[in-house]
């Protein structure tokens, strides 16, 4: 039982350390796109909708 758990934990750890660069790059790209929309883009519709949140999050707003 214990050995089985150990193997499972090991497999999990290996699977995680085996992470390739691709999903990480994908996450970075996704994150930047979301933050551009919520915090950086100056299009006025986006700006007005995100206004309070930008002020509250200390993003430079207008």
């Amino acid at each position: 039982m214990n050995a089985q758990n150990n193997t499972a934990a090991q497999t999990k750890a290996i699977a995680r350390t085996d992470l390739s660069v691709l999903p990480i790059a994908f996450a970075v790209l996704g994150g930047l796109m979301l933050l551009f929309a919520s915090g950086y883009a100056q299009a006025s519709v986006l700006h007005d909708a995100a206004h309070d949140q930008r002020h509250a999050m200390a993003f430079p707003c207008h």
Partner: protein
Amino acid sequence: MTKNLLTSAVFAGVAAGLIAALLQFVFVIPALLEGELFETGARVHFGANGSPESDRGSPGLGTEWARHAMTMGFNVVTYVGFGFLLLAAMAFAEMRGLTTITPKQGIIWGLAGFIAIQLAPAIGLPPELPGTPAAEIGPRQMWWLGTLVASSLGLWIIAFGRGFTALGGIVLLLIPHIIGAPHLDAFWGVAPPELSAEFVTLSLGAAAAGWSTLGFLCAWFWTKEL
């Protein structure tokens, strides 16, 4: 694994974004709406009668539900974005064998994110209460972006750099503030300074809570056995 990384970031970001929005509605937005009273002139500080005195008290959240729903929605979008970047950094560190991520360690990652993305830029450009005019948006966004990139790299180097390279991280943390954030040549604020100061500390406090929650949840969702 892509699915695990990305879905963990989404779950953590949605949860942390909702918690951050709740904290903002209780602590930050009432101060923001009070500042708007001065921005619009509904209340006047530094009045014409020579006295700076003005009434204190937030108008409350009111009934602008669409506006508040937007604030909540954009908090979720922002925190999912933060979650993607934070978990990408965690995964990268683990991939390089620099560390093993645990949920408790996630809190430290979250606090580091708070320092790099919120606190460091806020040192030069404090969160703006409505009714406190600031310099042109373009240069401010440039400085803000440069500061959070330099601060993130700086903290990374301090955490994972070997020997004296950690000192390079301190230099990176300092440079944006030595350059200095863009400011106006004069003070134009119409809101009471006390309210502005409270708004800054309240919003940074809410962000610190949001980021540490995000760090914990990112690590928890990512490392938990499914």
